[in-house]
């Protein structure tokens, strides 16, 4: 695999951070959030910041922007020097001058970072009107230009569109256009692609690289996707608990990591190569889905509307003890299929047979007794747990509904906590008192408590950083082994799919485009869409866990390089 290996020693130093300390406002004695950060970035360099969730990556970037939330966080020491200008001592007016012109930032969430009530064109133009004296028409021309440069289609239309009228990738590009329009010396990008599917991600990464080439911009890139790091970084800093634990050029870091934490992080990155499929059990298929169709909306009182065809003619079966993965771009209908199978929504047409019962057409009341046979782990574990309920209460809810006495259910809950490797006393705590990974495990425990025959996991690990993700995947594997449940696993992360699935189903625009054993589909895709998807996976030629490149044989076979 090719890494970037440009030498920056002659380039000018753009950002110099020394001994940066950030702590909670008004509480100088509490453990600081950032504890002595040092960081250097030179012109044209891409510096990646990786590390566990909550280690202080975003806070670092906000400190550089001078945008720490004043009633929560404050600068407690150190210096931030931008080409000779000390940011930590700047007045609000100086900071305002600096922003956009000298430093620009792309925020993590393009969905929420754009003002929903202003046209996106205006939002870009605003930067110009604040910091330059271009006339209205010149500014507009410049803006349209910039929008062209970020490869937005149909710029005239998009200029006057509102954010909600654009796709996620388009919105992200608006953010980038906004950040780059004044040729800043420093660009900070905070997880700009996490929410996007790989194909869109690829476009955006290319775009930043192009810009960098043109303007010689220094880039601080924050991400937890090691694949992305491998593709774009010149140098990497690894953060843990408010400190930078290791800092090295990319090749060095990936081939010879020094710190134990770095090693742990890299080892946890799942391999893109599918694991061998388990033996297909002879047992009868547990789940049988035939001709599933789901159309949202439609109807309407005054006139018939079209409706969204979110799933069309989906067919598959799952045998006990096996895992079927559904992958595909965002909005392709993955969750829709899961929710239909769970009967959280009523499919428009088709059959869903689970453990011998046709459930697609049952009334809610008739369905009730069958609910315990199939359970779901939702994408967002935090919001799927009632924040007012203790963990114990959440865990007991299902069993009590099906007649288990409270005491017995409590005893069961305690056992389950052990199974998912959480302390028993955690039963009396509330969801907000757990970390994301722990909550995910609670959600899994809750589903397992029902002893289901089918477990549906909808993007159950996509929000977690790789080390936690690995834990959760192991847990699922264990459970499957212990109870022999069938599993439907939805994800957009091909690495995860490769590690956990026996069979894979690829969806695009509501239609199944490819379906087969994981080995076959991921290593030997026949459909163009699947192929594009796999090609776009960043860092797919590197075996992170073993600090070496994948030889072409063990990389996806058939994947065109």
């Amino acid at each position, binding site marked *: 695999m090719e890494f970037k290996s440009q030498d920056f020693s002659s380039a000018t130093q753009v950002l110099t951070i020394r001994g940066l300390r950030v702590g909670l406002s008004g509480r100088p004695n509490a453990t600081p959030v950032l504890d002595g950060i040092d960081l250097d970035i030179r012109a044209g360099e891409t510096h990646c910041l990786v590390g566990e969730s909550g280690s202080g990556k975003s806070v670092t970037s906000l400190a550089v922007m001078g945008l720490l939330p004043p009633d929560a966080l404050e600068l407690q020491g150190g210096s931030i020097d931008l080409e000779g200008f000390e940011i930590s001592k700047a007045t609000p007016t100086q900071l305002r001058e600096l922003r956009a012109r000298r430093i620009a930032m792309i925020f993590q969430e393009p969905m929420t970072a754009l003002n929903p009530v202003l046209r996106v064109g205006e939002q870009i133009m605003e930067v110009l009107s604040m910091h330059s004296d271009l006339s209205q028409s010149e500014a507009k021309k410049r803006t349209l230009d910039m929008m062209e440069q970020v490869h937005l289609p149909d710029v005239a239309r998009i200029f006057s569109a509102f954010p909600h009228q654009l796709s996620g990738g388009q919105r992200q590009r608006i953010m980038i256009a906004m950040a780059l329009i004044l040729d800043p010396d420093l660009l900070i990008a905070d997880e700009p692609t996490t929410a996007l599917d790989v194909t869109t991600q690829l476009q955006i990464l290319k775009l930043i690289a192009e810009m960098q080439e043109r303007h010689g911009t220094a880039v601080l890139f924050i991400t937890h996707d090691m694949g992305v790091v491998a593709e774009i970084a010149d140098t990497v800093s690894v953060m843990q608990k408010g400190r930078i634990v290791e800092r090295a050029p990319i090749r060095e870091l990936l081939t010879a990591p020094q710190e134990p934490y770095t090693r742990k992080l890299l080892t946890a990155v799942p391999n893109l190569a599918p694991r061998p499929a388990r033996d297909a059990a002879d047992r009868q298929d547990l789940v049988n889905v035939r001709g599933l169709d789901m159309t949202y909306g439609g109807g309407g009182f005054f006139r018939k509307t079209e409706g969204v065809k979110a799933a069309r003619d989906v067919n598959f079966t799952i045998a006990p003890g096996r895992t079927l993965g559904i992958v595909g771009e965002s909005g392709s209908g993955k969750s829709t299929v899961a929710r239909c199978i*769970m009967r959280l929504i009523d499919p428009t047409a088709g059959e869903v047979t689970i453990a011998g019962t046709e459930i697609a057409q049952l009334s809610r009341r008739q369905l009730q007794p069958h609910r315990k046979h199939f359970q779901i782990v939702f994408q967002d574990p935090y919001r799927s*747990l009632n*924040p007012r309920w203790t963990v114990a209460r959440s865990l007991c*809810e299902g069993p009590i509904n099906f007649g288990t006495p409270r005491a017995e259910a409590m005893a069961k809950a305690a056992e389950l906590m052990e199974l998912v490797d959480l302390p028993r006393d955690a039963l009396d705590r509330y969801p907000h008192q757990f970390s994301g990974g722990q909550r995910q495990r609670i*959600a899994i425990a809750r589903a397992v408590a029902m002893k289901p025959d089918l477990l549906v996991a909808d993007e159950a690990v996509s929000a977690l950083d790789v080390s936690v993700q690995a834990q959760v995947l192991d847990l699922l594997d264990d459970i499957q082994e212990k109870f022999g449940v069938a599993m439907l696993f939805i994800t957009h992360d091909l690495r995860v799919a490769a590690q956990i699935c026996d069979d894979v189903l690829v969806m695009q625009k509501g239609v199944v485009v490819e379906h087969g054993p994981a080995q076959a589909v991921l290593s030997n895709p026949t459909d163009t869409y699947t192929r594009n998807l796999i090609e776009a996976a960043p860092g797919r030629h590197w075996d992170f866990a073993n600090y070496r490149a994948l030889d072409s044989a063990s990389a996806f076979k058939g994947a065109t390089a």
Partner: protein
Amino acid sequence: MTEFPQSRRSAFQVLTGMFSLPAGARVGIGPIIAAVILVAIVLASVLAPFYVPYDPLSMNAMARLKPPSEEFLLGTDPYGRDTFSRVMTGGRVSLLIGVGAAVVSVVVGLIIGLVAGFFRTADSIIMRIMDSLMAIPAILLAIALVALNGPSLGSVIIAITVPEVPRVVRLVRSVVLSAREEPYVEAAIALGSSMPKILVQHLMPNTFAPLIVQGTYICASAILIEAILSFLGAGVSTEIPTWGNIMAEGRTYFQIKPGLIFWPGLLLSLCILAINLLGDTARDLLDPRMKKREG
């Protein structure tokens, strides 16, 4: 009074949260002073019969409109009744009206709102009726109702409650409708919980926090509406002193004897100030952004 930040805390946490403040939320001394003032006024009103020097109803035609003196601490009203005794006693009824109206409208509104949020078929009928009740101006309805039943305490409370109920219903219903989309409700469905159980155990607690704020608002405005009703001659009978009817009776003496309006007005304002401040504090504390974002 329709949009409230939705909270992830229980009412109990809110109440206790006022005393043990969550990290990052600095409440300041204001609400504490407010609580002290409110408790003081409530106690003073409730205990009034035990310490006021005169029967608040006892008239003395020879001692009309006397200025404050040692004999009459705050002077006397046009009937020669002791203003101090009346104002202190009046607090009981005013506060009763406030609390009564708040409790009744919140409870009734909560029940109707839950039903409306739950039964889709009943929803449109209930909401049409609620819209209609809401469209009838409160004061006019109150006058009409008071004319119907006579200005008793009960009818004043009912008159104030009827137009408030639809607002509570709307609030509860909107909370129920949006909370219904929460993944944990879907999770409960998946776990086989019945709809009534979900409604009561999962959805209802979400309404408590905004209802506290709404309740304090109703409480405050009920005391004021009673004053306005008295001004229009449709309030509680003058045999029962309330801050509202003391002020209404005293209104013509505004320039001659401002004390008749000033003292009950002062207590009323302090009370409403305190109630509102506490309600606002509850709302601020309920703002999800006030909490540290855990996880």
